[in-house]
């Protein structure tokens, strides 16, 4: 497989090149026939990579060329595939291919059809390169490339002002994170002298904790931007202005998980920096909670799903923060399938409802679009975390890992937050399902005739519904299933930091994380003993946690049923009872307004100042002043040219006299 690794990203790249250059003139509505097969072959090759890794367990790498050869700073373009990469490859190519298929139906007849099928494989290429990169700089390049694709695809319908603004917002907010990421890479190079993953990780034990914490926090700032964690989460809901397949692929299943992937990839650095990990956990839990509260009151079908994405990404970050790397990646994978399914289902609804997105104007769609309903229901069950759907298993292992995390304050408090969020998740998912598909139609039945989507769209829904149901069993029993075993070589015992990880994160211990880490660095033996704690999570505890989280999810479901099907509790009355809270949630916690007042307006004022005062008055004034000065001097000097030949001769004679006078005074020996 080593020698064919490059084909995985190359094929989508070729599809992009062909479609972008020939799409407008020649290929046109056949563009999907270039893009989809390319991604499909990449998928097959990714399966081969997975198979080889499953059999041998040895990471695959392929050196392509040296990109930056400059003295001490050498960057290679080397593709590197270990178990983590293979998981990501499968997620990206599977969802990528199904979204391609779905888009052939969804984008049919769009004037930018070829453009869509150029950007989409370009994104797949960039994302594949991102996960295949073997060093931070290459990862960063494609980190930016996926950002670019996201920008291009959010603003795909660029004639819509909202789409253009959303694309700009996504790009600019991501700049903040990328600045941190870039600084982190620079600092890393300064400290380690390399940006290669393996070389950096090997040196981690020699570096001071403070330095590692700084680097880790900067890297996480980058992850916050890409994976839409608080405080950089504001771009993701707006990104729903893009076509729905784009939301499914980029803003749910793959690109937004790049930050999770990057932190997981850097786990060696993070687990050596416990304070940074604590930040990650708190940010993740807060994002999950906040997004869930917002998602409960939104009325736009895509926005609800978008906030649920934010919330689930928060779960993943929480898992990372408590050192539960494998559950984080597991949730990443399950989420990719059921969230893509949710988005594609939402797209199908929007398609069938003729571009209507407000769920208050839907209802009773079950009988009009049965396939969409059933697949959407499966995805919702998965997202809500109901046994035995995919989301249950991964969310459950995150909550379990949080409960047993080394730091009791963080661990226990965040577990409670995660459980409340699980309750909210189930509520907003089923509020969505009930409002959309059940009850009486609230749209104009006379004029709107909902219809089931074409097979090109429903088949991907069905294909995605299968993993949404079953993929959770990949890691059964939880924390010890085949998925955990498969990924363990990546996260298990790498470098000398591993004991510290195990000690600080998996031991049911009352020690603060930092203390645990300190001891991890000093006393090896003690932790070798504690390391066993990982496997000592009792089955009883697992079942307890599973039961509690199921109760939380089910009560959310039941509440939604009571409010929107049974009508026992009036949602309007609920809203009226807590008007402040309701509008606070409805207005998305007013982050946009706060950012506008705190950053955007001051920046605008500064820009106005720089433009009108510094640029126009000072710089232009200086330049124009000099120009006017020269002009004035020129106007005066031109009068020297009198036209009288006597004056000219006088000038020559005077010039001669002056020269001779000066020279004789300065240089001759007459006056010495």
């Amino acid at each position, binding site marked *: 497989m080593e020698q064919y690794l490059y084909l995985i990203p190359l094929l989508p790249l070729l599809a992009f090149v062909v479609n972008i250059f020939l799409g407008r003139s020649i290929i046109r509505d056949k563009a999907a026939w270039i893009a989809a097969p390319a991604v499909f072959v990449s998928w097959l090759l990714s399966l081969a990579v997975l198979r080889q890794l499953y059999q041998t367990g040895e990471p695959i790498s392929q050196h392509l060329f040296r990109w930056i050869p400059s003295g001490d700073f050498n960057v290679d373009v080397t593709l590197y595939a270990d178990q983590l990469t293979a998981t990501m490859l499968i997620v990206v190519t599977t969802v990528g291919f199904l979204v391609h298929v779905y888009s052939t139906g969804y984008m049919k007849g769009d004037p930018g059809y070829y453009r869509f099928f150029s950007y989409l494989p370009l994104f797949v290429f960039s994302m594949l390169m991102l996960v295949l990169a073997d060093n931070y700089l290459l990862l960063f390049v494609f980190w930016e490339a996926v950002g670019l694709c996201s920008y291009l695809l959010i603003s795909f319908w660029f004639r819509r002002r909202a789409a253009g603004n959303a694309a700009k917002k996504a790009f600019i907010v991501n700049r903040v994170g990328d600045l941190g990421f870039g600084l982190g890479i620079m600092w890393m190079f300064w400290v380690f002298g390399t940006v290669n993953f393996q070389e950096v990780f090997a040196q981690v034990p020699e570096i001071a904790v403070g330095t590692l914490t700084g680097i880790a926090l900067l890297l996480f700032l980058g992850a916050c931007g890409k994976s839409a964690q608080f405080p950089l989460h504001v771009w993701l809901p707006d990104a729903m202005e893009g076509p729905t397949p784009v939301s499914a692929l980029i803003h749910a299943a793959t690109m937004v998980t790049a930050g999770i992937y990057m932190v997981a990839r850097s786990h060696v650095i993070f687990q050596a920096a416990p304070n940074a990990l604590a930040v990650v956990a708190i940010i993740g839990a807060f994002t999950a909670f906040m997004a869930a509260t917002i998602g409960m009151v939104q009325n736009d079908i895509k926005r609800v799903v978008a906030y649920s994405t934010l919330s689930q990404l928060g779960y993943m970050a929480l898992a990372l923060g408590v050192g539960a790397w494998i559950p984080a990646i597991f949730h990443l994978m399950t989420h990719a399938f059921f969230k893509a399914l949710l988005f594609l289902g939402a797209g199908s609804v929007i398609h069938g409802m003729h571009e209507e997105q407000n769920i208050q104007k839907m209802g009773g769609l079950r009988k009009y679009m049965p396939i969409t309903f059933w697949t959407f229901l499966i995805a919702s069950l998965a997202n809500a975390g109901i046994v035995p759907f995919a989301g249950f298993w991964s969310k459950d292992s995150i909550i379990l890992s949080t409960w047993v995390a080394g730091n009791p304050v963080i661990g226990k408090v965040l577990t409670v937050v995660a459980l409340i969020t699980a309750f909210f998740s189930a509520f907003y998912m089923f509020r969505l399902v009930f409002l959309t598909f059940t009850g009486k139609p609230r749209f104009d039945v006379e004029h709107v005739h909902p219809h089931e989507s074409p097979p090109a769209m429903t088949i991907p829904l069905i294909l995605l519904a299968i993993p949404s149901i079953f993929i959770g069993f990949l890691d059964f029993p939880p924390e010890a299933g085949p998925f955990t075993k498969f990924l363990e070589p990546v996260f298990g015992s790498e470098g000398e930091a591993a004991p510290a990880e195990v000690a600080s994160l998996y031991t049911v211990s009352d020690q603060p994380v930092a203390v645990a880490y300190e001891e991890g660095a000093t006393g090896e033996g003690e932790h070798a003993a504690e390391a066993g704690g990982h496997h000592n999570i009792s089955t009883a505890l697992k079942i307890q946690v599973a039961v509690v989280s199921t109760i939380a999810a089910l009560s959310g479901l039941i509440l939604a049923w009571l409010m929107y099907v049974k009508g026992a509790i009036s949602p309007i009355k609920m809203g009226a009872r807590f008007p402040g809270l309701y509008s606070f949630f409805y207005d998305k916690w007013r982050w946009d307004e706060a950012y506008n007042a705190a950053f955007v307006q001051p920046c605008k004022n500064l820009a106005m100042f720089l433009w009108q005062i510094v640029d126009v008055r000072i710089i232009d004034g200086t330049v124009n002043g000099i*120009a006017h000065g*020269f*002009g004035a*001097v*020129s*106007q005066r*000097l*031109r009068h*020297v*040219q009198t*036209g009288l*030949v006597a*004056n*000219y*001769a006088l*000038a*020559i004679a*005077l*010039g*001669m006299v002056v*020269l*001779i006078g000066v*020279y*004789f005074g300065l*240089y*001759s*020996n*007459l006056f010495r």
Partner: protein
Amino acid sequence: MIVDDLSVLPLPDWSLMLPQLVVFGLAILLLAGDAFLPKSSHYKVLTTLSIVGYGLAMAALWTQDGKNAPTFWWLFRADGLGVFLSLVILLASLITVFVSASYVDRLEGRMPIGEFYVLLAFSTLGALLVASAGDLVMIFVGIELASLSTYVLTAFAKRRETAVEGAMKYFLLGIFASAILVYGMAWIYGATGSTNLDVISYALANANASSSILGEPSLLLALLLVVVGLGFKMAAVPFHFWTPDAYDGAATPVSGWMSVVPKAAAFAATLRILVQALGPMADDWMNLIAVLALVTMAFGNIVALSQRNVKRMLAYSSIAHTGYMMVGLAVAGGIAGFNMDATGDEGISSLLFYLFAYAIMNLGAFAVIGWVQHRGRGIMLDDYAGLASTEPLAAAAMTVFLVSLMGIPPTIGFYAKYRLILAAIQAGNVGLILAIGIVLLSAVSAYYYLRLVATMYFSEPSQTPRETKTPLLNVGIAGLAIATILGGFLFAVPVYNLADRWSRALEIFAHIPGRFF
């Protein structure tokens, strides 16, 4: 020159001055043709003859290349410096034939083309003799030969008052300057006892050792008088006053020619006298030239800003370019001296290359002015309004020349200015100041060059062009435009390397017979 015994003097080697003889023969043939051929055939025959003659002379230059030998008792020398300068002069004359033929023949009341070519050939010959002179007397004779013909050429459009006025001013001031120059030469002879450049240099170098002559007021006076005289010829401030009036008055192709060939002759004389003969006094004249260079480029560029007559604007621009070229001279002094060998002194090489580049781009700009005049437009800035929409190719060519004069890549003007600035920077603090001066004043110059470009491209056309055919002129402009662009990268380096051979000029020194002293 002190010669005891004429019988031991070697006979002159005529073959060494083949190019000069070709031009001389051309002048005689043109005279004869003008006298004996029927008037109707003058245009065709004499134009062809001139083109062939200058072409042959350029080809004959290769017989001089690498010779480095004196003849005519050290009055004349075939050396690298002379070859390069001759190349520039002959090229300029050849191009002038291309761009002036139709103008002289058709505009300003049909001037007599035979006389025009004869004067052109004699003036060229004078410049060539200066370029290859080995003696002060030869330099003076050459300069006068070139100047006298140029005075007449300036007045050639004699029905126009400004032409006569400009020529008159040029002539009066010219003889004034010549008198100063020859007075300076007399002082040099008085101080060193010779008019031979190499002997002067030898005498000064020995004096340098014993420090008896240097610092001597007579020598300083000689130096200053020579600089004033030459400064007039090359149009350095404050001896430049004739330039705008003469350029404005002369027929346009003559203006272009005047801005190149007499200037090249003046720089040739300056190099011969200051570097070759007075090289040992370089410390004395270096700062003088530097100050003059700075004043010249500042004055030329600044006054050009307020000109609305395109020919006057280019006249001031040519003053500014004189200032740039004097920088090459000023920084050459640092390493100059009679014992200078082919070390990395770039000052004079860059000056020579600049002269070459300047010849191409400046002749091109004047050629376009002539071309536009053929189509019934004037020479004021407003006459160029909207030229790009009625005459796109002419506007494009003019833009190329102006961009090159500004010194913007990829044109030959950029490379020339680049070498000049490079040479200046390598030459220490004075050079650095001069380099900064070139850069800043080039920025000033961009304003008036670009104003013309903007007028051509962004103003509404005010005139409808007159239909006319000027095939020779078209060929000339096209060739110059192509050379201006290609010269920026294609043949810039070979030509520069040729210019770099200037240093061979002084190799002959070692062979001068002892009895000369």
